[in-house]
């Protein structure tokens, strides 16, 4: 009976701490280790390479598309520019890039005389007013001051005509006294805000 008892305990011990069980643990551990090594040294680099190439392809596709769009846009603009080059050349006179306000001057001269005024002085200056609040990229305001003689009754029409010019000038200041000179005319002082471009190569690239 005693021998039988010892054998049972030994069998249980054998089941619990059998070398087979230990071996299966080692087997599993080794498998996990090898799997991890393969993942780290074989699969990861190849997947990384594929991901990198895919990313490069995506970036290059986007870049190529944007370049293609740019080329198409430029081609279209070239055609449009060729069609309306004459009209666009007028812009150079309306918003001069070289400080040449010849069109504005001739327009002012005709507007002034049409309204029965005589131009006594005119000068340009840098804009120092506070009324210009637009955030323009290329157009810069300038001040045009005029001394005029004429009749008070024509003043409003003159101001309207001046603001209707294609240069989009704005009346900044007006001052006058109703005292008349020998010719029965009143002296007016008007300042206008006009625009020019401070880049003499703006229209000529």
């Amino acid at each position, binding site marked *: 009976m005693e021998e039988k008892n010892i054998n049972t305990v030994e069998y249980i011990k054998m089941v619990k701490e059998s070398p087979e069980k230990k071996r299966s643990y080692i087997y599993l551990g080794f498998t996990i280790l090898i799997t991890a090594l393969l993942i780290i040294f074989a699969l990861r680099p190849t997947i990384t390479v*594929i991901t990198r190439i895919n990313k490069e392809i995506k970036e290059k596709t986007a870049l190529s598309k944007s370049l293609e769009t740019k080329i198409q846009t430029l081609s279209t603009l070239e055609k449009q520019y060729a069609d309306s080059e004459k009209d666009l050349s007028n812009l150079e006179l309306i918003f001069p890039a070289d400080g040449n306000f010849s069109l504005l001057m001739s327009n002012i001269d005709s507007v002034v005389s049409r309204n029965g005024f005589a131009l006594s002085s005119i000068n340009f200056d840098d804009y120092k007013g506070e009324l210009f609040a637009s955030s323009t990229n290329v157009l810069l305001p300038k001040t045009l001051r005029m001394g005029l003689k004429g009749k008070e009754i024509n003043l*409003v029409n003159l101001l309207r005509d001046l603001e209707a010019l294609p240069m989009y000038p704005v009346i900044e200041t007006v001052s006058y006294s109703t005292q008349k000179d020998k010719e029965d005319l009143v002296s007016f002082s008007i300042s206008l805000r006009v625009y020019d471009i401070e880049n003499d190569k703006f229209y000529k*690239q």
Partner: protein
Amino acid sequence: MLGTEKQPKSINFLEAVYSPNDIWSSAYLWLTEVGKYLLIFVEVVVLGVFFSRFILDRQNNDLTEQVNSQVILLSNDNWKKNAILFENYQNLFSDIRKVRMEQNINSLVISELISGIPSSLNLESFSYNGNRVSFQISASSLETITNYETALKNNSDYYDVKFSINKDSTEINVVVSFGLISSADSK
């Protein structure tokens, strides 16, 4: 003496039929049972990647060539100049639009100011300075001036209305000044 040792007479069902005891045999067993599948799987993936790289690399190279040719085309001096010129025009058009839409037409304001002075008052001098107006008027009766002052002070477009009255022997001289609330401010 070999093989003559007495073996214990027992049948152990817990022992595996074949269970190698040395490390090389265990490694061989592992390699044939599990390792080969792992290696096959990895090889399949690596081969797949290897062949897919042919396609992806070709695609990548084609795109590189395409981008390079586009860049060369755009680097052309004529195209460069045109690109700058068209950008300038685009900025100019945008500015013209801003100026046209955003700026106030002051001739209308001045017209309203001058025409708003009652005919019974004589305008002596007038000064408009963007957002501030001052003028000198003369009148024979104080009532007309008071009415005009009330009208100006009740006008919501004007603020800080000031009247400075000087009475002469024959007429009353008034200096009027006030600020204009621009349409942009009132918004």
